[in-house]
């Protein structure tokens, strides 16, 4: 049980690291760290045909770094905060868990107060 979890975890991390082994993909992640963007905006700084660029986007998506959503003809990409925390390190991932938990507590308490 523990071993299979380890293998799964290790596989996830390998995919995350492999996705970072390319300057285009690192550039995309750096841009998305400032907020979601469309594929065409992301592609603009790179001198690359769109099909080649899409391969990078798909690899980032498969590895879990980003998620994409299509609305009409525009595909929007966003960074996946949970996967990012996982790759950042053990303590950082726990920090994210507790920060988000505190966010929810804060929201719960302040929204309740407004109702009273």
């Amino acid at each position: 049980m523990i071993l299979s979890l380890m293998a799964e975890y290790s596989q996830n991390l390998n995919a995350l690291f492999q996705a970072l082994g390319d300057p285009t993909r690192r550039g995309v992640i750096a841009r998305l760290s400032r907020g979601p963007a469309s594929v065409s905006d992301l592609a603009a700084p790179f001198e690359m045909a769109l099909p080649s660029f899409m391969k990078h986007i798909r690899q980032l998506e498969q590895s879990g770094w980003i998620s994409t959503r299509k609305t009409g003809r525009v595909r929007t990409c966003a960074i996946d905060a949970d996967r990012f925390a996982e790759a950042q390190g053990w303590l950082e991932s726990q920090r994210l868990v507790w920060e988000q938990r505190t966010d929810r507590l804060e929201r719960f308490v302040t929204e309740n107060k407004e109702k009273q």
Partner: protein
Amino acid sequence: MNPDREPDPELDLTISRVIAAPRQNVWDAWADPRNLEQWWIPAPAKCRVLDLELTPGGAFRTEMSTDGEDFQPHLDACILGVEDGRRIAFTTGLNGAWRPTVDGLVMTAVITMSDHPEGTSYEAIVMHANSAERDRHDKLGFEDGWGTAIRQLGELVG
């Protein structure tokens, strides 16, 4: 409980927040199981509190469900200390029946609430053992230079 001990930056987390609500409301959000269920686990997953015995040695057990029907164990912890309205400390180093635990992420959390001019000063100190969980994570690729690259990216995102 010795709350004056210095946190270890390698193992411990401190979350500090000023919450714009009276201390009693923040306490009630923690101490009433029906309230705790509302925020303990991220939506859309559902939380069920099995035990929240706010006394030293009391059980603190929660379950979670992704479909709202089939509930799985989530937290099984032991309450260490309680100061009514101000502090809750619990650990997963013992389960709710006092059995020592070795699997999973073992932690001790100390939640402190104090009055603040803008509401409540809220602090969570989370201490971890120098555990297998941590070592396991470190072995999975953080020794080979990737750690630095990811930290740099982390600074961009953070």
